[in-house]
């Protein structure tokens, strides 16, 4: 929807070259700052720029989705969220194939839409906070796969 491509890589997690390039650019311009351990923080200038971007109509509607997704970290540990995403139908299939593979292709979207249709049935379509379906979906991925090992590339490092 926003035009960013993602793929499952050898490392086993969804990766976006578009996002990676954006992070690099933001670091270069001082909007993001990396600490000695490599963790990223928003600079004061970055905070101002973010506020400006959020005010633009082209990006305003993205806020709801980003806020909802990030809000899931209030309810679940980030490591658990990452584990859940590894069991998402599109990601899981790519990991099992042991290949670097694009995500969110038409077939991948179809798999997700099946789950989201069930999610709409479970929590309703009109929700005030997208954190709610996000957490329900992530919890579902964890519970439904509880007896299965986390899919992974069993390939050389």
């Amino acid at each position, binding site marked *: 929807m926003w035009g960013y491509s993602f793929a499952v890589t050898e490392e086993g997690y969804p990766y976006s070259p578009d996002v990676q390039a954006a992070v690099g650019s933001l670091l270069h311009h001082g909007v993001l700052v990396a600490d000695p351990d490599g963790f990223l923080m928003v600079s004061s200038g970055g905070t101002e720029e973010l506020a400006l971007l959020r005010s633009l109509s082209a990006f305003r509607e993205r806020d709801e989705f980003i806020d909802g997704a990030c809000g899931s970290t209030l309810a679940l540990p980030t490591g658990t969220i990452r584990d859940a995403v590894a069991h998402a139908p599109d990601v899981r299939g790519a990991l099992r194939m042991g290949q670097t593979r694009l995500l969110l292709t038409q077939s991948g979207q179809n798999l997700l839409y099946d789950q989201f249709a069930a999610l709409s049935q479970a929590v309703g379509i009109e929700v005030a906070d997208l954190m709610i379906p996000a957490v329900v979906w992530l919890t579902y991925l964890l519970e439904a796969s509880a007896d299965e090992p986390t899919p992974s590339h069993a390939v050389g*490092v």
Partner: protein
Amino acid sequence: MMLDVEIMMRIAREQYVPAAEAAFGASGAQALRNSLTVVRALYGRIEPELITGSLCVVHRVTDGSGRSLPLELSPNPQRFTGVEMLAAAYAAPTRTGMAVIEVLPSGQLDLHVDWEPVDLADLSRGAVVYEYGGGGERFFIGGEEKAIYNPSPGIHASVYAIPTFRTLTAALEDYKIRFVSTSQCPIFAGVWSNETRLILRNKPEETMRQSLTHFLKTVLRSAEVRPEQVVDESHPVDIKVTWLFTTRLALIEIKWVGDALTKEGNLLPYRDARAKEGADQLAGYLDANASQAPTHESIGYLVVIDARRRGLDVGTEQLPISDAMWYADREIEYDPAYHTFRPDFAEPVRMFANPALSACKPD
């Protein structure tokens, strides 16, 4: 994994997150966000394990007009502008009783330590209520108790207090102290042949790997943790950790030393040589990794689960405490000591697993 709609419906019905909006609409969702933010911030400053009484966090829900439904929890609460000052005031003696933190519409926090306990389900008819106590945590929303999903039940006291570590070294140290030494992790507890924790069961390696993998997945920031990753044709390394947006990679090899009960009912002793074998193995993995992934910055970690006891026999149920703890502070000497001359080889981490107190008798 086939789509199971019933599981999804059950989660939506039983869990607290959807309940907040179902009961109170957008106000409920916002109240829940605010409450979770306060709980997380509070547990960043106090350990929930130290709360021996109970702690509630209550967030009134507005009725859409901006007014809150009235709550009178106690006549003289202490008011704070932030969690930091409140946490300092929420001192240890307070934690043995019942305390309530009320999140006000202004964002200020009222701490009630002298309050008349009320039925929390009733209280939640006009509020989002979080309670920690009685050995667990729960939400009350819209008059009903709601479940909290905890990925590590029995390991961390609260899902909102699961630590996150920036470095693998710090995470391993926490795992060693909090989980291996006491066998507190329900997964790790399965390595023992019985409750005395003197003798390991047959082939405990996989359980040890599962325990550490589960722990690292939960607590490491921005890292992927994968068990049994093939490095060379001989043997998969136990755990591989990669960090997002970096070229850093860690290979973890787990070895145990101690006595395991074989299928035949004999004791299989592993001592220092086993740990040294693990060091050689890990050095080999690092060499293989260097050729296959030369652009990665790789570090090898040898984790040694130490279950050694002195004077064990099959069927031993008790040992003099000096024998049971004989190896508690006895480090393993490595030759070659890879960690002293290989920059890609971290100092081995030995994790001594204590026997059960009941298995120790006076000398």
